[in-house]
């Protein structure tokens, strides 16, 4: 009876994984060689930075609005309790 060779199994799994990843790797090579890539890249770069600062700015704005509203609410409640 023959057992499974772990090394051969490992090599086969590795090949399988490389085959799965191959389409994305090919797409990457094709994308890099396409004309107008620099212009497109700039658009993507601008989009990414807008997203980063947009998300952070929106969160900071929401946080400060909520903080102000809650501070007002605490002040009002304290006034009612004391008054």
């Amino acid at each position, binding site marked *: 009876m023959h057992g499974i060779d772990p090394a051969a199994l490992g090599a086969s799994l590795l090949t399988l994984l490389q085959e799965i990843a191959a389409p994305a790797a090919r797409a990457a090579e*094709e994308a890099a060689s396409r004309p107008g890539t620099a212009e497109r890249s700039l658009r993507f*770069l601008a989009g990414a930075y807008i997203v980063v600062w947009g998300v952070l700015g929106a969160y900071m704005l929401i946080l400060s609005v909520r903080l102000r509203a809650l501070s007002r609410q*605490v002040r009002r409640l304290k006034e009612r309790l004391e008054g």
Partner: protein
Amino acid sequence: MEDERGAALILEHLLLALVGLLVPLCLWVVFVAVPTEEKMGVVQRIFYFHVPAAFSAFLGVGLCAIFSALYLWKRDRRYDLVAHASAEIGVLFCTIVLITGPIWARPVWGVWWTGEVRLTSTLILWLIYVGYLLLRQSAENREQAARWAAVVGIVGALDMPIIYKSVEWWRGLHPKVLKMSGGGGLDPRMERALLLCTVTFFLLFGYLLIQRCRLGRLEDEIDALAQDAPRRGTGAPATV
């Protein structure tokens, strides 16, 4: 308590001032001082904010796990506040990672998304902590929410080493940013730019964390005042 709040306020202003100074410097370094990467071109510059955002997301998740464990041990509400705030900010930075990643991948890999392990495990991390935040909102009482969320906060952090080691374990397509030995293969100027952006993001994280904890304290104060109102007979409503 007042001293503690005063110190937090000073630290908050200091962090904001530092972030205000460092963000324009980061932008100048990223867009002017750092050389353009040969293979990927200008789109590689996304890396200088994508990677620090990922580190900040890890910081948020890590802090959430630590403070969740502390809460389960000590049952101190303050630990739960920090864990909640860290998770929320961690989700914020993880969202940035998950948006900027595909924006980088589209021109470089030619696809927005692929079933690569690092991408998938990062998406899972995001889903776990969005679940954490939803769980807190849907629980019937605060004590129960804190207890259950703490468990999710600790278990969810187990995804972090998988994300970090996934490129090595599964030989994924995702570029390896840090190598434990032999350097990261980055130009020293790129390394310095990455370090500067990471420090800036960590300072921003600290600023947001202090603000978010203050928000949590105010919510607690409102609850306490609203509970106190009927006892004093002032008739103040629970919510204003």
